[in-house]
């Protein structure tokens, strides 16, 4: 199949279908409405079910029921709606149920606005809901990458029995780009002997996150930690762009990373050795390339559409070896190439401290 021109939101929906998603439960919220609308048309064609829930809370709990019943299932939302889903996401993590959750991030806090933002990074990468858990979080930077990570997300969700979040933004969801669907055949999930299917010829299955005895809950939490350690060891993804000899390393993900790439190109034209590390997984965070670059780069500049969230992870990875600066725009404002480049020059001309 060749390339087709598609909007990010529709592409993520089609990718989910190819990834084996048979059930979608969601609630309308801008800027992600094309996802449920696409699923409403598309899922019946592949023998699946689309259901518009009465709230994001209900939608995530329908996801819980469908996932526990063995299905590949997805929900999508944005900012405020993802906040509403957090209790359910905690239950999914606790009961070790696989699913894929898309957040096309909008401006916050509160009702905020429908402009693009990256201000849900903390919520996505720190667990978001109550309790000690993590999500695998992807931060794709193009419609093509959105497609690729969505298909992979269903595989990882089943492999690790964990919710996986795709953290996009309003631009990624709304923009059109050529994409290629490299998966020709609709994928199917693995056998799930733990799922509730009716206890015919086997002992009954129990889907729960309740461990009333502290020793048992601690055992469960340690089992989850071992799983998160395994994910950390195996699933860190990133892209390095001109970092080998970089004096200044930019750090950005998603839409902001695309602008930063243009900044690196511009800087190189001017003889400035700039580079970019673009995390593709936001959790687990690819800390190694940052730590290594800290041995030779003079400084780091993290750029986000927020007041500074991923910058914390960059600082942890750099671990005090070199200064880590931050530049951000918020409220639905996208930082411009000129603004970021001015920051690069300011840091270098001021001398890295």
């Amino acid at each position, binding site marked *: 199949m060749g390339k087709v021109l598609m909007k990010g939101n529709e592409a993520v929906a089609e990718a989910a279908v190819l990834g084996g998603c048979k059930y979608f*439960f969601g609630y309308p919220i801008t800027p992600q409405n094309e996802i449920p609308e696409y699923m409403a048309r598309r899922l019946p064609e592949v023998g699946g079910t689309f259901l518009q*829930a009465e709230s994001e809370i209900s939608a995530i*709990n329908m996801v*819980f029921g*469908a996932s526990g019943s063995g299905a590949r299932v997805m929900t999508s939302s944005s900012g405020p709606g993802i906040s509403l889903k957090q209790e359910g996401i905690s239950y999914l993590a606790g*009961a070790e149920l696989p699913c894929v959750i898309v957040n096309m991030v909008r401006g916050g806090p509160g009702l905020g606005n429908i402009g693009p933002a990256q201000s849900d990074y903390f919520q996505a990468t720190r667990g978001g809901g109550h309790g000690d858990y993590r999500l695998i979080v992807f931060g794709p930077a193009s419609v093509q990458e959105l497609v690729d990570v969505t298909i992979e997300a269903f595989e990882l969700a089943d492999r690790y029995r964990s919710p996986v979040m795709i953290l996009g933004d309003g631009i990624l969801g709304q923009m059109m780009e050529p994409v290629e669907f490299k998966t020709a055949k609709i994928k199917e999930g693995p056998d799930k002997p733990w799922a509730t299917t009716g*206890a015919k010829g086997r002992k009954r299955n*129990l889907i729960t996150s309740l461990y009333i005895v502290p020793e048992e809950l601690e055992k469960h939490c340690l089992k989850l930690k071992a799983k998160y350690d395994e994910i950390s060891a195996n699933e860190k993804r990133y892209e390095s762009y001109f970092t080998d000899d970089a004096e200044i390393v930019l750090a950005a993900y998603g839409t902001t990373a695309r602008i930063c790439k243009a900044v690196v190109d511009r800087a190189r034209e001017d003889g400035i050795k700039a580079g970019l590390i673009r995390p593709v997984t936001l959790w687990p965070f690819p800390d190694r390339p940052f730590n290594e670059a800290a041995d030779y780069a003079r400084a780091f500049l993290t750029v986000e559409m927020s007041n500074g969230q991923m910058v914390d992870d960059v600082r942890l990875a750099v671990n005090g070896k070199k200064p880590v600066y931050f530049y951000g725009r918020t409220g639905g404002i996208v930082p411009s190439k000129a603004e970021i480049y001015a920051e690069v020059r300011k840091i270098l001309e001021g001398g890295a401290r």
Partner: protein
Amino acid sequence: MEKVFTRPKSMTDKPMHFCPGCTHGVIQRLVAEVIDELGIQEDTIAVGPVGCAVFCYDYWDVDFHQASHGRAPAVATGVKRVHPDKVVFTLQGDGDIAAIGTTEIIHAAARGEKITCLFVNNSIYGMTGGQMAPTSVLSQKTTTTPAGRDKNQIGYPVKLTEMLAVLDGTAYCARVSVHNPANILKAKEVIRKAFEVQLNKEGFSLVEILSTCPTNWGLPPVEAVKWLENNMIPCFPLGEYKVAGEVQR
């Protein structure tokens, strides 16, 4: 010697955690008897609540989902959509279904979701220690209405079964009680009917079951049964509220 009475096949032999005089255990048993009689143990997936019935999976030997507080009808919806040929039911208390989970139950009913919801109404929060429930009756003393439920301050009990009866998606809903043997037998018939409505794919079904809470009502078991009869039934009249698409009463 011939065995004339034993636990239902779809019930485990785990001792129940319910307080002495609480009728919750009777309800659990009735449901297990119905599952056995309909021969659906291997085709049933249950969804449990948060509250006193949170451990009901310990007693029913069927596939089971433990839902978050109030969301059992949404979880059951997800289960049923994946397994439309299985019998899917929820067990929920009054706080779970008629306070925090009001949205989920109303919309599951409105969709005509082919699930059965069993609603245990004991007019108080049991698990958390006796706070006011959405179904606490007027003047009822609880730890959060120490002077009694005052309609001018906190309003009136929620009559969920009556509310659901007017929704087109509800195929069957009824209110029963388990405070004496005659009502226990009646309750079992109604629970079976609700499951049959689901098996016949008629739509959404719900049974509200009035139940005692001697511990949090502060009454001995026999007094609790009388309290239910004298205070709950007048507020929550027993009967079928919707049968075969017809709103009753």
